């Protein structure tokens, strides 16, 4: 008999795996010159809950070292109808992983005839984060995401964040990732303690607070873009699914932040 698969499925699909988590080549080629690598990293992405769901905002800047490579990057990406991944770290790696996850979730649902569970999805993301760790260690850039989703079983939004090794944590109020997230960490707590928990804020308020935090991050982190040229990206997940925050709503939210005129500081020398 021939050495061919005896079952029809393998005869059709062949021996190669259907989906394999991408691993970049040259990972063991020694540490690259971190100053001149072609890797984009810095960013700030933010997820906050609100009364009817969860809002994600992200700046649009993609950097490589000290260069701004792109000012229209989309860092809040849909994995399925109810799940957003806000990405930080290597842009190339992030985009590839998001493509992988989208296919992995759909492939599971179509082949198994049932959607992947939330826990299953969170584990897939954790694996993708952990697989990027060797690259991150070499300065090639791993990626760290925040996952926001609507949990139909619980009837409420949920936010999960990860560390560089793929450990998963759930947050009751907010999540932030990227180089600018460190600087604004305390500001989240300040908002929650002095104003209101994000999860009790109306959508307009939560959007405004998230944009203000993004604006502070852009002020304090060189790799996070403001919105002088391009408006930030904002998306919302509710029980009805994912919606983009439209241009009009975004413009009025940004205008409502009341950034005054620039200060003139005289030369006292």
């Amino acid at each position, binding site marked *: *008999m021939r050495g061919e698969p*005896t*079952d*029809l*499925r*393998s*005869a*059709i*699909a*062949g021996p*190669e*795996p*259907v*989906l394999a988590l991408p691993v970049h080549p040259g990972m063991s080629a020694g540490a690259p010159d971190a100053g001149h690598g072609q890797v984009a990293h810095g960013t700030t992405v933010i997820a906050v809950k609100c009364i009817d769901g969860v809002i994600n905002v992200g700046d649009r800047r993609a950097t490589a070292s000290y260069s701004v490579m792109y000012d229209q990057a989309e860092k809040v990406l849909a994995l399925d*109808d109810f799940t957003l991944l806000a990405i930080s770290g290597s842009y190339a790696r992030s985009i590839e992983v998001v*493509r*992988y996850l989208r*296919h992995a979730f*759909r*492939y599971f*649902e*179509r*082949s198994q*005839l049932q959607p992947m569970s939330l826990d299953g999805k969170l584990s897939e993301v954790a694996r993708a984060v952990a697989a990027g760790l060797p690259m991150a260690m070499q300065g090639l850039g791993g990626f760290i995401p925040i996952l926001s989703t609507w949990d139909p079983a619980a009837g409420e939004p949920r936010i999960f964040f990860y560390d560089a090794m793929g450990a998963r944590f759930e947050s009751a109020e907010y999540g932030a990732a990227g180089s600018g997230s460190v600087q604004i960490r305390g500001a989240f707590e300040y908002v929650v303690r002095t104003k209101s928990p994000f999860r009790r804020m109306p959508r307009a308020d939560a959007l405004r607070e998230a944009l203000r935090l993004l604006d502070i991050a852009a002020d304090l982190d060189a790799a996070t873009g403001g919105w002088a040229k391009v408006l930030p990206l904002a998306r919302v997940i509710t029980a009805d699914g994912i919606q983009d925050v439209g241009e009009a709503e975004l413009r009025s939210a940004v205008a409502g932040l009341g950034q005054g005129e620039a200060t003139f500081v005289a030369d006292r020398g």
Partner: protein
Amino acid sequence: MMLSPYDFNEAINQRRDHAEEGLRQGSPVAGLSLDLGVLLITVRRTQRKVYEVYDRMMLSAVGNQSDIEAVRIGAVDVAHREGYQRSPDDVTAQRLVGFSLSPVLKELFRDQWRAPAVVRAVFAEMGQLPADDAFFTLNYDGEFVRSSRCAAVAGTPEAEALMAEELAAVPSDASLGDAVRAGLLAWAGAWQAVTSDPGGRGQAPGAPAGSADAVGTLAEQLKDGRVEVGLLDRASRRESRFRRLGEEELTDVVAPLRRGSGE
């Protein structure tokens, strides 16, 4: 062992009979390409019958459940590997059926040491424009046929021809309800043709759509059958255009048909 040409023909015909026998009792499937999207319409008993293959592609079939499952999951495998490695735009029914499925089924059918797959499948694909919609019906022997406006899969060629004729008369601007109703009546006509001709050799006439016969047959079959419809929604903004409609969503259409009312 030497095979003479006679033996070869004999063997092929026996395998063909075996497969046709297995397909005959399968519940037919009607396919329609309309302005609103692409539909696969059928009546099922216990197993579900319409499946999503990829973002803009779905599948239904008659035959052995295990063979349908193998073809389905093989197709899903190939589509996702291609869609991930290249692009979703490169996943087309023409490539999937022509290069991945047909050669394998043909080889299996002609391999004397293995049982042929008992399956007749219809792949429905929604293009960017209604004119680009395509149906591929794929047979157990690897033969496949492309059509654009409508498609029919049933237990006998006569039933399929009858069904295709009725489906071709559905206007492309039909509403979802009208289209499902027309598809179900065509289904009933095909089912009559199959069951009134148990040998599968005769020329049993089916009932024209809307006749008391088709309506009665449908009402009878819906006693222990359930309507299942797969929709590739042209208006949807999701990447995955597939939606499976159960009877809950089609009550306005199905309830009168269950009562045996033609209107």
